[in-house]
């Protein structure tokens, strides 16, 4: 075992663990357990908010598969990844103050709470809870597997042992610390990701003999690598541009992201978070994908894209520094998985159990229930990650686009369009999800674009037309929005 690499990683796990214990003090002393456990008491400052957004969003796929794809495709893939710069400011500007004010008025703790109060419909609640539980549950198992594999490849431990080390450390701090623990560890993890990519980029440039040398090596190998069109010239402008919808503006509708727009303390923290998150997201995405491209002349012939990051770190950095840098993808995975875990848990406890099964549950009952649900969910995902069923893998491939297609119009329309109603909301979610699955399965890339674009357009038509045609049935209730 390579202890010089492993020690910094272990140290990192220990720090994260203590943050959980520290946050647990807040949970104990809070007046409202629900607000604290699932939303950090709505008290996040600008920096923490920005970092928790960034690191929730930057997941295993962006840290391991992203650089891998850039390694194979060249600068065209970096261009594609830069569509994510918009995520930082767009989400917070669109949901922004209106979402914060309304969710406070509704006393909403989850996205489903917001939809429930806005549309006043049991079916909206049930449909959205089910989508969240199914999609995010599957998305979580992929992150879990990624974490296990990463530890396995670094330490040489068997996969199962690696998976248990990884999950035990994540589970403990999420279960006891709740949202605040998640947000604070996200901040540490976001900083690690930021510094890690910077160090690694510098290391790679030095190892490659400078940027001009690297670029000319790439051009000599295949000149498509330095064009916007990808190694085989098959990245069309339509396709690349459609990622503005999938990873840029559509991110507004991801529940794990949107819930963060409920948690800020005041407008000043919101303003600060907009600037910081734009900078950090753009910086990490640009560097991380450039690392992937620049790694190609230094380490040619890597077959498995996901291993580019770990391999290049060990190649160009001294072992102890590689250990620190490799905490970055681990941080990315942990911070995504913890956000998903707390969100699925809040959906089960708040949206399903308290709404429909036992509305009169006591404060201490909620406390016990929340912690046990979080534990049980965590354990189920671990068990599934040991040998993931095909269905989970399949669902998880679709989770991001599926959630966006389901939620974008109910959330945006709910905030900004007074005529949007429950019928429109249900129609839009159903149409969005169904067509997304149909496109992905039978007709990927309609009009040369990612299928999420066409699904969101159809969901929009459904939301508007059904809302307008049912105006009389749904008299008045939400007309006071504008």
């Amino acid at each position, binding site marked *: 075992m390579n202890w010089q690499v492993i020690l910094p990683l272990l140290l990192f796990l220990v720090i994260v663990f203590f943050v959980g214990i520290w946050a647990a003090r807040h949970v104990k002393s809070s007046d409202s357990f629900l607000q604290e456990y699932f939303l950090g008491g709505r008290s996040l400052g600008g920096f923490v908010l920005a970092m928790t957004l960034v690191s929730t969003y930057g997941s295993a796929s962006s840290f391991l598969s992203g650089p891998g794809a850039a390694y194979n495709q060249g600068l065209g893939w970096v261009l594609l990844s*830069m569509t994510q*710069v*918009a995520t930082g*400011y767009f989400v917070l500007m669109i949901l922004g103050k209106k979402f914060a004010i309304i969710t406070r008025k509704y006393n909403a703790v989850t996205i489903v709470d917001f939809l429930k109060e806005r549309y*006043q419909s049991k079916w909206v609640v049930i449909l959205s809870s089910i989508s969240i539980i199914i999609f995010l549950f599957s998305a979580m198992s992929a992150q879990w597997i990624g974490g296990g594999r990463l530890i396995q490849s670094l330490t040489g431990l068997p996969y199962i042992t690696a998976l248990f080390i990884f999950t035990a450390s994540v589970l403990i701090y999420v279960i006891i610390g709740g949202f605040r623990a998640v947000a604070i560890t996200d901040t540490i993890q976001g900083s690690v990701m930021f510094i890690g990519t910077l160090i690694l980029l510098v290391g790679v440039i030095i190892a490659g003999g400078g940027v001009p040398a690297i*670029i000319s090596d790439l051009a000599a190998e295949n000149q498509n690598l330095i064009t916007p069109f990808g190694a085989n010239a098959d990245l069309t402008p339509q396709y690349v541009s459609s990622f503005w919808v999938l990873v840029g503006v559509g991110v507004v509708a991801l529940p794990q992201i949107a819930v963060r727009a409920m948690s800020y303390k005041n407008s000043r923290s919101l303003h600060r978070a907009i600037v910081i998150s*734009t900078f950090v997201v753009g910086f990490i995405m640009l560097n991380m994908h450039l690392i992937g491209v620049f790694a190609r002349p230094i380490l040619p012939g890597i077959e498995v894209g996901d291993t580019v990051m770990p391999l290049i770190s060990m190649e160009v950095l001294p072992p102890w520094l590689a250990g620190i840098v490799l905490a970055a993808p681990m941080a990315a995975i942990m911070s995504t998985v913890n956000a998903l875990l707390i969100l699925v848990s809040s959906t089960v406890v708040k949206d399903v159990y308290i709404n429909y099964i036992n509305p009169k549950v006591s404060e201490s009952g909620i406390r016990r229930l929340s912690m046990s649900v979080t534990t049980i969910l965590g354990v189920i995902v671990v068990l599934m990650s040991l040998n993931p069923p095909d269905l989970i893998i399949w669902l998880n491939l679709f989770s991001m686009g599926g959630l966006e297609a389901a939620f974008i119009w109910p959330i945006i329309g709910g905030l*900004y369009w007074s005529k949007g109603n429950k019928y429109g909301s249900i129609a839009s979610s159903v149409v969005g999800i169904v067509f997304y699955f149909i496109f992905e399965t039978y007709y990927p890339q309609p009009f040369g674009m990612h299928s999420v674009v066409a699904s969101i357009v159809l969901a929009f038509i459904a939301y508007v037309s059904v809302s307008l045609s049912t105006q009389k049935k749904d008299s008045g209730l939400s007309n006071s929005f504008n």
Partner: protein
Amino acid sequence: MTLKKEDIDKNDYRFKIANREALIGIGLVIFNFIWWFGFAYGLGGQDPSEYSYTFGLPNWFFYSCVVGFIVMIILVFIAVKFFFVDVPFGEDEENEDK
């Protein structure tokens, strides 16, 4: 808890501010897209042997991804600093301010 109509006053001045800020967000995204797309495919569409370079990076990439990112940071900073307005979020906060 039920939705009370009087809770959501459409004349709430804060919503006018929020709506304007959301429009600023949309404007920034559109600008961001045009800049990104224009430089990437405008300069990158030619034959790679005719590319010019800045700091070793092909010009299309340098202007679209690197300069584009810096320009967006500056614009977002200006938008937030000069056009975004501080408002209270909750009732408590509002009372404190009075």
